[in-house]
């Protein structure tokens, strides 16, 4: 299996967690590596924005001496967005419905992030 196929598997496993509507893996600098986003708009733009968000959060938090943030969570009226670093090269991002509790999603997302880190 190629690395690309392995990442695809990580995402399709993640997509099987009922609460997750869409997910993607990108480089830290905002290039799409793999997406599982059925009809959810433009994945390239989505991951570029996510990378910027995570990067900005990391800069803001570490500049203030609070260390590197574990994740960025965005709560909007129509859904939630969770963005998480996966090692120094990559990040994982997932989208859920607004009413979803984050417990399971965060656990699964962390697992996926760990896998991605090891694969790259």
């Amino acid at each position, binding site marked *: 299996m190629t*690395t690309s196929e392995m990442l695809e598997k990580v995402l399709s496993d993640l997509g099987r967690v009922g609460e997750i509507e869409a997910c993607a893996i990108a480089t830290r600098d905002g290039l799409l590596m793999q997406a599982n986003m059925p009809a959810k708009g433009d994945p390239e733009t989505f991951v570029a924005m996510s990378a910027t968000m995570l990067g900005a959060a990391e800069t803001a938090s570490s500049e203030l001496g609070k260390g590197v943030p574990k994740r960025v969570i965005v709560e909007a009226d129509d859904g939630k967005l969770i963005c998480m670093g996966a090692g120094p090269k990559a990040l994982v991002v997932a989208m859920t419905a607004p009413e979803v509790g984050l417990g399971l999603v965060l656990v699964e997302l962390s697992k996926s992030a760990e896998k991605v880190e090891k694969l790259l």
Partner: protein
Amino acid sequence: MIIETGIPALDDHLHGGVPQGKSLVYYAYPGVECNVFGMQTVHRAISEGGRGIYVTSSTDPRMIRDLFKEFGWDAAEYGDRFVIVDGFSGLVGADSPEQYVVSNPDDAGSLTQAIKQVMEDAREPSVIVFESLSTIMDLCGESATLDAIEEWNRYAMLYDHVVVYNFTAWPYSEDTLAHVKGDIFNSVVSIGGITEKVIFGQYFGVRKIDWDEVTKKCILFKVLKPGGVRVYLPKILVTGPFDAGKSTFVHALSTRAVSVDRLGTTVALDHGHVDHRGFAADIFGTPGQERFDPIVKLLSGEAMGIFLILDSTNTADFVRAKHMLEITESMGLPVVIVANKQDLEGALTPEEIRRGLDMAHDAPVMPVVATSREGVFEAFDVLVDRVMEAGSI
């Protein structure tokens, strides 16, 4: 006469295209979509007023026409200049609506008969595309197919047809693969996936041509629907000092773009897609103010080329502009300097800007008015040419 493949960057590397009477194989590694290459080549031929013949082996002819439509090409528009040789219906025992039907698709002789017939009937030199040579190989056997290919190619040469094959390199015998890559075709274009690097993508590159020199280069591509094969530049950076017009430039260039603007300035990033002259690119526009430098640094990794946007009326910012090139760590990357706001009074000429910036003599400085899109695509063309020259992945 030379037949273009319909993929401009590929035609460049083939020195114009495929000469009449010659053959080309799109040699794809498993897992990479290659049929679109053959389709694009046959579409190019018919849209240029030529004749195109498409030999289908694994797909219903009606589906083929639908597939063409998905890419935005309507085969019906070209009437009898587009012909399908149906090597599929015979397999499933279906009636065929096509004029040319292969009665026994699993027999190379039967296929040869149909192909010779269509080649003879074509009143002018045409382009013949095999939808899937690998399917033919699976049906007829490897050695029978190899023999048949030689016969088809000889016949095509006789009638001045160009023959193009889509081939996926499944685990056939090493001998067979060596023949396909090596000696039975006049030219070989390999198509593969990149999985080693951090960027995941697909590339094509000319592996062999027997009518000119081969320039070994791998070119990233992406398949658009509609549109077909486009050379793909995953990241082109647009940077420059505050208020130079970076966001305006990104929007002027892009078919669709989004920006993160607050109080009239970019705080995070502009992101746009360009589809122009056979090239597709994703454009990343950085903020310009110094307090956002960490973001500029974050976004500039893995860029393939850079636009440095300048306000032509504001020489005070030139130092900052050069500093931004340093922040983006763009040393050695192709850079095009965009002398924006050329419509304003007091705008310096591109030559004056080159001197003011103390840039190399041949550094391209392009006059642009981003608000009215003047010069925007010219600047894009220059950068793309530079990236392609520099460019192997």
